[in-house]
């Protein structure tokens, strides 16, 4: 199995400040990397760098197709949830909606969703994308206990299918994770 993510000697300078350097990332199928570290240590920036939205100041990176869930609500607020999700053309949408228990919310406009519901919708968009590499920035934010267990199940199922995950979080995630601690 070829690797889904390969990064060597990554460094990132933002606003004249060195966030991290010499970071090596490698994820095979089924792999999972938990990025930890204090606020401002560059966890989100590392995720955006892997996503290709930021360019490394040094090092090189290659990755498979990826899907990102950060703290933005990227669904159109005026649309019902099912149509807002459908815009992103995820091949696994039919599977993603029940995985995050969104059936009952399908006709609710996105602007009326609570923080936790919106987070579940964003995670469903990632699952629906069918991308082998998931990039999750604070995926547990706003989720209740049920939401957390749905997230755990989705992560386990994704890894069992040969997917890989990078998650930035302050709290432990279910399953076995490789740890990467960034320093402030």
């Amino acid at each position: 199995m070829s690797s889904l993510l390969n990064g060597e000697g990554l460094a990132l300078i933002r606003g004249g400040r060195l966030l991290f350097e010499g970071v090596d990332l490698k994820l095979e199928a089924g792999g999972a990397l938990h990025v930890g570290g204090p606020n401002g240590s560059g966890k989100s920036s590392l995720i955006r760098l892997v996503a290709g939205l930021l360019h490394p100041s040094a090092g090189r990176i290659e990755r498979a197709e990826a899907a990102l869930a950060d703290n933005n609500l990227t669904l159109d607020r005026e649309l019902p949830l099912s149509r807002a999700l459908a815009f992103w053309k995820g091949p696994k949408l039919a599977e993603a909606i029940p995985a995050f228990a969104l059936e009952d919310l399908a006709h609710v406009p996105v602007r009326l969703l609570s923080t936790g519901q919106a987070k579940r919708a964003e995670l469903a968009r990632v699952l629906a994308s069918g991308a082998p590499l998931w990039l999750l920035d604070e995926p547990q934010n706003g989720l209740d206990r049920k939401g957390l267990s749905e997230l755990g199940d989705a992560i386990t199922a994704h890894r069992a299918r040969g997917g890989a995950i990078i998650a930035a979080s302050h709290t432990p995630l279910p399953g076995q994770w490789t740890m990467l601690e960034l320093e402030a």
Partner: protein
Amino acid sequence: MTAALIGREVRRGLHGAAWLPVAFFLLVATIVPFAVGPDGRLLGRIGGGALWIAALTAALLPIERLIEPDRANGVLDQLALTGTADEAIGAAKMIGHWLTFGPLLLVAAIPGSLLVGLDGPALFRSLISIAIGTPALAALSVAVAALTAGLPRAGALAGLLMMPLAVPLVIFGAAATGDGESAALKLEAAVALLIVAGAPFVTGAAIRAART
């Protein structure tokens, strides 16, 4: 993804205030005779120019909703992750914006032309000139929206940026309404083509530069 994005732009344009630029355009055209006076010959001479000023100022109105909301919400980031080129986003936004702006403005240009004293062959010339100009105005709006996205007081800044860029278009567009014999219409079309062809690249580069 590009087709879906065009559809989304049209839906959001109609859902938002697609009539607002048109209403503004007609309002400016209505004010011209009040400001200049009822002299039909004088109005007919300056009418084409007045109409173009109205069209240009109307094109400024939707700028703030074209790019900035999608940048702030991370939609542009997600589009990049689906493998959509930033230039393709720019082109889709231009087409989507034109669809909710161009045809409506063209329809409004009929009463608008009559209000500023252009009738008969002059009405026909002004409609042709506006029709050729609207894709360029839509393209400029999207490019300027991308260049100012995320900046404070972006609306005012967009006006300052767009007005000078639109000068060649206004010169030839207004001239084409006045004189059917001159080459103004061809020059207007050339300027419009240049703007329409270049705007997706400007928009794409601006979207990339705004990504932090």
